[in-house]
């Protein structure tokens, strides 16, 4: 066991995957000598050499596109997009190729590739450094989308993503990269993609969250439980494919539902989860389901950012309104 933060767990997952499988290669902007702007790839070039961990040219379409070619020809590329807001120049390659190569060739060629990217706000950053773009991937057939919320999950999910036969978008909540530490096993392990985690059980209401919102929601729930409510918290962990079963079973039990996310509200991920609940547990609902999410403005720069993302206080208020409906 080591006590690691989320970033260190991500690093360990790559390190052990490279150790176990010579075909795992890591590249992206500044991931080599520097070990990445967040140091997620720290030490990998020194340990595995410049062919296995290298600085790419400054071109996201090349990062994804060359990764696709490598994956087809036997490698397992784990590429880093420096911030999720910079994935756009590579989005064409992700959507039109990585996601579709298997289908296009009826599984002759496949793209076992992981595209890592720090995402989300709360770090007082420049423009395009704070987006939550999971819907842009999750609405695309052929991609899997994974978001860990703890160091333990980060390691297990990333190792599973690297083993996965299909392209996985691995979004890392940078706001909690170093927020807390956790015991993480030293040996390699995998957490299955496509399974949500019931973080805590409860009777009165079901709340789904992921990434950095899990902690905010946990804090809100603690407060509400102190007031006598019993709330079930589900960490979605895999944004796509969604683990509908776990969610629906929970709502059938609790009768109330909310989803908390950092992405913008309109046409955001919350709409999907509420619709799933409508489809699978409508008759169990005792209150209208609710989404607690960022507003539909452009993500503000730091001096306005606190207005944007849901915080603990807002979550408490909103959950209460569902509980007391």
């Amino acid at each position: 066991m080591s006590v690691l933060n989320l970033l260190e767990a991500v690093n360990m997952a790559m390190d052990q995957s490279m150790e176990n499988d010579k075909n795992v290669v890591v590249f992206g902007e500044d991931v080599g000598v520097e070990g990445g702007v967040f140091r997620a790839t720290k030490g990998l070039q020194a340990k595995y050499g410049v062919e296995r961990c290298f600085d790419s040219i400054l071109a996201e379409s090349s990062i994804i596109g060359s990764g696709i070619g490598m994956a087809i020809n036997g490698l397992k590329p784990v590429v880093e997009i420096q911030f999720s807001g910079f994935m756009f120049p590579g989005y064409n390659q992700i959507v039109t190729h990585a996601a579709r190569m298997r289908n296009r060739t009826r599984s002759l060629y496949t793209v076992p590739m992981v595209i890592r990217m720090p995402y989300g706000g709360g770090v007082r950053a420049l423009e395009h450094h704070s987006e939550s773009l999971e819907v842009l991937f999750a609405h695309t057939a052929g991609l899997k989308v994974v978001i860990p919320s703890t160091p333990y999950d980060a390691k297990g999910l990333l190792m599973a993503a690297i083993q996965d036969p299909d392209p996985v978008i691995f979004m890392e909540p940078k706001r909690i990269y170093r927020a807390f530490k956790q015991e993480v096993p030293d040996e390699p392990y995998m957490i299955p993609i496509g399974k949500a985690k019931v973080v805590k059980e409860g009777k009165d209401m079901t709340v789904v969250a992921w990434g950095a919102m899990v902690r905010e929601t946990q804090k809100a729930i603690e407060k509400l439980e102190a007031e006598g409510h019993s709330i079930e918290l589900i960490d979605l962990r895999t944004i796509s494919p969604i683990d509908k079963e776990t969610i629906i079973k929970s709502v059938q039990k609790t009768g109330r539902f909310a989803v908390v996310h950092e992405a913008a509200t309109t046409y955001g991920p919350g709409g999907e989860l509420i619709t799933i609940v409508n489809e699978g547990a409508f008759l169990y609902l005792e209150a209208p389901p609710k989404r607690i999410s960022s507003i539909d403005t452009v993500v503000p720069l730091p001096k306005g950012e606190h207005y944007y993302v849901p915080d603990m206080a807002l979550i408490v208020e909103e959950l209460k309104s569902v509980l007391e409906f």
Partner: protein
Amino acid sequence: MLLDTYNPLVDEMVQIMDKEGKIVNPDLMPDLTPEEMLKMYKTMRFSRIIDEKTLQYQRQGRMLTYAPNLGQEAAQVGSAAAIRQTDWVAPSFRELGVWLYKGAPLHNIFLYWFGNEMGMHMPEEVRILPVSVPIASQMQHATGLAFAARYRGLDDVAIAYVGDGGTSQGDFHEALNFASVQNTANVFIIQNNQFAISTRREIQTKTKTIAQKAIGYGIPGILVDGNDVFAMYAVTKEAVDRARRGDGPSLIEAYTYRMGAHTTSDDPTVYRKDEEVEAWKDKDPIDRFRKYLISEGHWDIDKEKEYSDERAQFVKETFETIEKSGDVPLEDIFDHVYAKRTPILEAQYQLKKAFFEKEGK
């Protein structure tokens, strides 16, 4: 070596055989056996026959959209013949001759154009990536293929094809730069057929040659008569050998002309005059190759007729099989999104299945 000495800013287009089928540059003439030449010639003829018959089927309403290759057979087959079987190709969508030369069954090719993904499930040894519709995007894949080959200790080369229009996309630039920086075993072949749909090469890019774009990446760039199968072969061979030796990527501009429409949905008379097309007929890559082969005694009119008839019959039969192939089974569209159906896809499959069964479809 041509690639080391050729200057795309100064030198003329590389040509070995002129439009009369005469060898005008014997020094550069590649060392090909008559058998090899005949294989190349036959593939070009086969490609032309496929095009012609498919256009005919299309006019009869028996075919979906199709992109013909008429006029570009030498650019395609001349380069493909210089490639080793294990070398990779990342094609665009107008490379019929390359597919054929590398052994893609016509069955698959027709299946693809007929709107069935199974068409792109080629025999593994073909080693051509599937048709890539987003212009120039495939060039990035070629860099990764080459990187992986070297990484795995293999000396396979990866060839990417792109059109003159495709050179405008950012992906063109990034792929060339990646290959240059990583010194990967890549050869990039531009089929400059003078058009991107209706858009003329002159308003696509203003450089004297497209080949000179190579200078922006510090790699060799060379302009070749794309209607001269020997020139295409010789230059590609040199580029491929060079790449295989580890000496890095290069860029080849095959100067040619799209004799037909962009696709069967296109009406080229809207944007170009017949006279322009006529002028290029005179440079037809197949005619001049045939003249050469006949003058060397490797081919004759009887063989031509016999071969053409036999191939036409084969095309007809293959097409008719495909024509009867019908829709894909429902499973097909669900089973290759991921390695395994997700629960959501499974549920949607069951619903669709029930629906279509009820509908009697």
